[in-house]
Every structure is written in structure tokens, then in C-alpha cells.
């Protein structure tokens, strides 16, 4: 097993080292030697700065959207649906995981196309679809990673004993109050576990951005376009998601959510 571990870990370490190297502007040859130039560029060139911030913003929006959808769905599946309906829905939310990443991106590319299904649906209402852009990207990414959030939230909902809800009702709490004060605190680890995936996967995505993002630039597109021209800059950019994800994992570990993975 050692060679694979060495290759993978070694590559990550080398990536960090490369991030401090530079490129000859004429020959595109990588020049070893310590420089903070790449990081200075990321932090000071406004376009790069905005790209990094925008990507983190998109990842947060996707995570929030997934969580917002997973809560009522989980509540319905775990506590209201009949066992049969519950089984159908449980298969229903996990099945698309197998349909293939590109196929799903592709299906939303069709949906958001100008003159496509969404426009067709909205025209009678006097509206237009958003077309390819940041909104389409957030929807597509949420669609892609939704099962990673929905499954743990649903599973956690199932583990909450019914009599906790009954007790809450006996004490006079209405439905929503019960969800907020009883269910949410118990669901927190599941939300954090799910968010690790929705957040991290959104942060690194660049293919969905290419196909439904329109002109939206994300960290991934910058890495992909620099990998051959300026590897050290691509490497430096790749460390941004690593730093953010590791920080996120560290916070998640403190909350005990990693045991839920």
C-alpha cells in the first residue's frame, strides 16, 4: 500500500512546494526557488481575489440551499410518510447519485438553455429562465450534491424518538417550534456532515461552471486554465480549497460531526 500513499501524499506535498516556485514568462518552464509571488498575486490581483471569494460564496449558497431543502424533506420522510412512501423516497433521493456527474450537469444545461424547457415553462407567466450564469450554477451544484445532505439528515431524523415530539407537543409547542427547538439541535451533526461534502465538492468544481456557469469564473476554472501555462500559480490556487476545507474539517471535528461520516 505504501507506493500509493507515498505517491498521493508526496504529490500533495510537492503541490505545496510548487506553489512557491515561479514560471519563466517566455518559455513557460517552471523555475524552482522560493517566492511568495503566486500567493501575493492571488491576494492582490482583484480578479483572482474576487474569483476566490465568489467560489467560497457559491459553495456556501449551495450548502445553504441543500440544507433548506433537506430539512422539510427529511421531516416528511421520517415522521409523516407511510413506510412504503418512505422507502420509495429513500431510493428516490439516492438513485440519481448513480446517474453520472456529467449526465446531471448535461441535464441542467438542457433545462437552462435559451428557448429550453425552463423558458418554455416560464414564458406563459411572463418570465424568462435565468440562462447560464451564477444562479444556474448554484442550482446545478445543489442538484449534484443534494443526496450527500439529504441522506444524513433523513437518517438523523429517523433516529429521533417519536415521544420527544409528543412530549414537545404536550408541553404546548406547535409544529414549527418543535422542529426548531427539539429536532434542529439533534440534527446539527448531520447537517455538518452533509455540508462537508456539499461545500467541499462545490469549492472544487469547474466542469459544471464551464457548462452552466456562463461567464462565471471559479477557482477550478482558473486552476484548469493555468495548469499548463503556469503550474506554480495553479498549484497556489489549488491550496486555497485545501486550506478552506482543512479549516472546515477542523471545525467540524470539534462539533463531533466526523463520527457521523
Amino acid at each position: 500500500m505504501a507506493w500509493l500513499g507515498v505517491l498521493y501524499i508526496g504529490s500533495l506535498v510537492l503541490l505545496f512546494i510548487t506553489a512557491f516556485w515561479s514560471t519563466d514568462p517566455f518559455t513557460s518552464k517552471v523555475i524552482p526557488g522560493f517566492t511568495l509571488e503566486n500567493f501575493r498575486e492571488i491576494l492582490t490581483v482583484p480578479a483572482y481575489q474576487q474569483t476566490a471569494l465568489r467560489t467560497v460564496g457559491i459553495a456556501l449558497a449551495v450548502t445553504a440551499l441543500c440544507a433548506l431543502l433537506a430539512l422539510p424533506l427529511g421531516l416528511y420522510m421520517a415522521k409523516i410518510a407511510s413506510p412504503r412512501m418512505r422507502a420509495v423516497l429513500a431510493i428516490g433521493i439516492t438513485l440519481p447519485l448513480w446517474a453520472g456527474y456529467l449526465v446531471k450537469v448535461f441535464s441542467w444545461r438542457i433545462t437552462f438553455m435559451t428557448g429550453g424547457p425552463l423558458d418554455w415553462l416560464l414564458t406563459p407567466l411572463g418570465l424568462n429562465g435565468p440562462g447560464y450564469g451564477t444562479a444556474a450554477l448554484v442550482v446545478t451544484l445543489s442538484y449534484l450534491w443534494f443526496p450527500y445532505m439529504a441522506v444524513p439528515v433523513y437518517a438523523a431524523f429517523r433516529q429521533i424518538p417519536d415521544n420527544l415530539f409528543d412530549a414537545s407537543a404536550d408541553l404546548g409547542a406547535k409544529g414549527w417550534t418543535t422542529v426548531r427547538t427539539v429536532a434542529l439541535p439533534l440534527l446539527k451533526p448531520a447537517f455538518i456532515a452533509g455540508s462537508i461534502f456539499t461545500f467541499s465538492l462545490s469549492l472544487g468544481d469547474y466542469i459544471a461552471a464551464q457548462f452552466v456557469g456562463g461567464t462565471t469564473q471559479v477557482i477550478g476554472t482558473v486552476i484548469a486554465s493555468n495548469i499548463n501555462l503556469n503550474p506554480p500559480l495553479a498549484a497556489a490556487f489549488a491550496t486555497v480549497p485545501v486550506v478552506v476545507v482543512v479549516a472546515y474539517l477542523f471545525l467540524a471535528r470539534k462539533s463531533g460531526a466526523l463520527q457521523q461520516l
Partner: protein
Amino acid sequence: MTLSRPAKVLLRVFAGLVMAAIYLPLLLVILNSFNATTSGAFPISDFTTRWWVAAWHNEGVRAALWTSIQVATIATVIALVLGTMIAFALSRYAFFGKNVVNLLVVLPIALPGIVTGVALNNTFKTVLEPLGIGLGLFSVIVGHATFCVVMVFNNVQARLGRMNRGLEEAAMDMGANLPRTFIDVTFPGFRSAFIGGGLLAFALSFDEIVVTTFTAPPGTETLPIWIFNNMSRPNQAPVVNVIAAVLIIVSMIPVYLSQRLTGDDKR
């Protein structure tokens, strides 16, 4: 649970809408593969099966499919061996740095694929290429194996943790040697997790695109890469539609069947 009737109805409608949002786009792809016009305008007016015929005879697709099968098979075999070994090492033995190894194994799925891809691309180009191992099928397989190992490891480790060690001790007490015990007692105990992890690894590898783009040499196409390369070519669009439709059907039916066969809602 006590919820007002309107609230229940609202939640039911909501669940229905989510399901619609999940499946309508996929249905659209299948529908679109029969679209006679190539513009993709909606609603579809003319239907045809000729793109299905064209896709069937497409050489590029066949070559890409074969590459995908090769890569996924080898990566899965590597993952099964390594993932199981790591799972055993971590759940049966205490050693220095165990927590670090635990974290490192999970890293490939916690980190975005693009990081793994760029890191491996960088290593192959700057370190291994001068040694004669450039980008090729080998680098693609290595890239896939990194996250396939995690899948097998996760599945097997979870099962090992719940297994009854007493059974193995009993087998040894009754004179079975170590390999015998493993074959007759230990392996059957985690077999389904082993197979499940393998299937998951195979499916993931078959679907992988990001790590592949960075570890494949120019000209080597797996099926996802082929779709990716042809998605924005207008004259190939109908064939891409068909391949996407096939992938939806082929990937979902066996999963649906296996879920139905293994019984309803076991969670």
C-alpha cells in the same frame, strides 16, 4: 408527530416537488435523445431513433467505453486489496500515528477532486516523467485508485468494527490456521461490505472526470472525457444525448433492482 393538516399537506407537496426536480431533468435528457432536430429547442416536435443508431456505430464512444472499463476494473481491484488491508490495519491493530493514517485515507474524498488531479499532474510531469513514467493509462489508474481505496476502506472498516471477534478465536481454538480462519470465518463476515465497496468504487471510477482530465495524456479518453469533449460540439450533440440517456438507464436500473431485492427501507 403532531402537525396541523395543512402543514402535512404542504410537506407532502414539497416532497413531491423535490422528487420532480430530481427526475424531470433526467427525463428531459432521455426525451431529448429522440429529438429529430439538433437545435434542442423546446417543446420537441419531431421524434426519431436515428441518433440511437448513430451512437451505436460511433467508434469514439466504443473506444472510450473500453478505456473506462479497463481503468475502472484495475482501479477497483487495487482498491479492494489496499482498502481492505488498511481497514484491517486500522481496526485490528493499534500503532503509532494511527489517527494520522485514518485522516490521510479519508483526505482524497474530503479534498476537491481538482486538488488531487492537479497534485498528481504536477508530480507526474515534474518528477516521474524524467524517470520515464509520463502521463498514461497508468497515471489515470493511480488517480482513480486514490479515491476508490477510500470507498472500500470505509465500507469494510465499518463492518469490521461490528464483527464478532469471538468467532475467529473460536475457529482458531478448534484448530483452524490463520488462512483457514480468514477464508471460512473472517471473509464471509465482511463479504457484502467488500462487494458493496467494490461496486461503489467501480461506479465512481466509471463516472470520474476531474481527476481524469488532469492525469490522462492527450488522446486518451474515458467515457466521461468523451462526453465532456463532445458536449459543446454541435454536430456531436445528438450522440451525446443518446449516451447520456443510456447512462441514466443503465446506471439506475440495477441499483433500483438491488435496493428492491435487499428489502425496503433498512435504515
